[in-house]
């Protein structure tokens, strides 16, 4: 029986499937800034965002877009932080659209105006996604850390549709809002969303810090999925084009998710300071990632250490190494393995084959008894970020 570890006899290594050919970086996520007027306690940004380096310039971003587009990137997401705080956003949209990208603006809607919606349309923006924190004003504003957020979002969602954009509405769900999922869905249908993302909190960044206060119970989750399926059936029967996308938290799975469709497989994130990552959660890992200020996108995607670190199967210790599901789920999420086991090569503890699966079971148990209120969560803001960075 082999023990856990990456040094294995040749006889076992020989049985590993061949390393798949490196795919195209079809999806480019441009995190333009970490600045944001909201303070959502489940933000996926790194805890120490306030300590990160200088933002890339307009010209540097355009170079990134041009090189990625030449390599086959087709979808471009403008994200953050709140991308609207970048004064050059319309210019970046126009350049990206000219290059042939499908351009997505992923925003909280705070800072959006009808004028901007119209200007972005002229610049060639293809789609706007607005995130909501809850279906009712009070909970939404409490979570967002802003008194006016909800009314502004409603107004902007209506304006987005009025200007002829397709619209995705994104609701991050958790134990404080998931029981209202029927009202969330009703609101999205009323706002004429084309797609609704009902995304149960994924535990990275600030969400991981606040996990006990966010993870829904199994019962809450089962109920939410049932309600969603009822609405799906109803929409389909009506021939309604609105599509509901339900993202379950992997804490209630027995097998890990095929995170990012595999490391360095289709997804490339560039963070505000130019660090390139295979996934937006990877920054915290003890892996050296390249920066677009120093390297071409070609080098970053195909040759850099960071992007090759977990490609193929050679890096896998047991139980992933001999597992017959490794080509399906790639051992799960590297960031989660690192956060919960201290070693990014380990199997994602979500997997019941992982020797660390107990941490997931414990989290489920804690969800049954958690008492934290929204007000007791750690809000994502500069002050908290600096405190955390100082340790």
């Amino acid at each position, binding site marked *: 029986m082999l023990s856990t570890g990456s040094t294995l006899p040749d006889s076992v290594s020989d049985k590993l499937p061949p390393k798949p050919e490196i795919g195209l970086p079809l999806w480019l996520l441009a995190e333009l800034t970490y600045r944001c007027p909201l303070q959502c306690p489940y933000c996926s940004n790194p805890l120490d965002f306030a300590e990160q380096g200088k933002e890339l310039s307009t010209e540097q971003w355009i170079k990134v877009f041009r090189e990625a587009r030449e390599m086959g990137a087709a*979808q471009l997401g403008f994200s953050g932080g709140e991308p609207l705080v970048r004064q050059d956003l319309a210019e970046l949209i126009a350049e990206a659209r000219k290059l*042939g990208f499908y351009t997505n603006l992923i925003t909280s809607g705070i800072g959006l105006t009808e004028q901007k919606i119209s200007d972005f349309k002229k610049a060639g923006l*293809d*789609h706007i996604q607005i995130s909501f924190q809850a279906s009712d004003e009070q909970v939404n504003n409490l979570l967002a850390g802003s008194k006016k957020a909800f009314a502004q979002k409603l107004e902007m969602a209506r304006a987005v549709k009025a200007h*002829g954009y397709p619209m995705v509405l994104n609701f991050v769900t958790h134990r404080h809002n998931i029981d209202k999922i029927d009202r969330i869905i009703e609101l999205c249908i009323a706002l004429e969303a084309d797609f609704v993302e009902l995304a149960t909190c994924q535990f990275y960044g600030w969400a991981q810090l606040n996990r006990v206060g966010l993870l829904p119970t199994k019962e809450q989750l089962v109920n939410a999925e049932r309600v969603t399926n009822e609405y799906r059936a109803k929409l389909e029967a009506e021939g309604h084009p609105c599509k509901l996308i339900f993202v379950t938290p992997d804490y209630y799975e027995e097998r890990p998710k095929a995170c990012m469709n595999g490391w360095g497989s289709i997804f490339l994130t560039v963070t505000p300071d130019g660090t390139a990552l295979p996934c937006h959660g990877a920054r915290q890992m003890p892996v050296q990632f390249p920066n677009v200020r120093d390297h071409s996108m070609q080098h970053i995607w195909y040759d850099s250490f960071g992007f090759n670190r977990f490609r193929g199967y050679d890096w896998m210790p047991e139980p992933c190494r001999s597992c017959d599901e490794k080509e399906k789920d790639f051992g799960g999420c590297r960031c989660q393995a690192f956060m919960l086991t201290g070693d990014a090569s380990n199997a994602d503890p979500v997997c019941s084959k992982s020797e660390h699966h107990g941490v997931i079971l414990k989290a489920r148990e804690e969800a049954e008894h958690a008492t934290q209120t929204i007000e007791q969560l750690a809000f994502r803001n500069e002050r908290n970020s600096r405190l955390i960075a100082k340790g």
Partner: protein
Amino acid sequence: MSFDRSKTPTWRTGYRYQYEPAQKGHVLLYPEGMIKLNESAALDAQFPGVPELAEDIEQFMEVARAQHWIDLA
């Protein structure tokens, strides 16, 4: 259900059909997603009116309508 040929299909608002050199093929792009279309879906753009293609196209239209990729008017 057979496809009503008298109707004019248009891509749903916000859906974009384009050639991707890196993939050597046509794709349909939509919010945060992409579908790679096979050869027959791309043919109507190149050879409009060729009768043998009609069936392929009709099949594609059926799928496209069910998936809400197109609007018919």
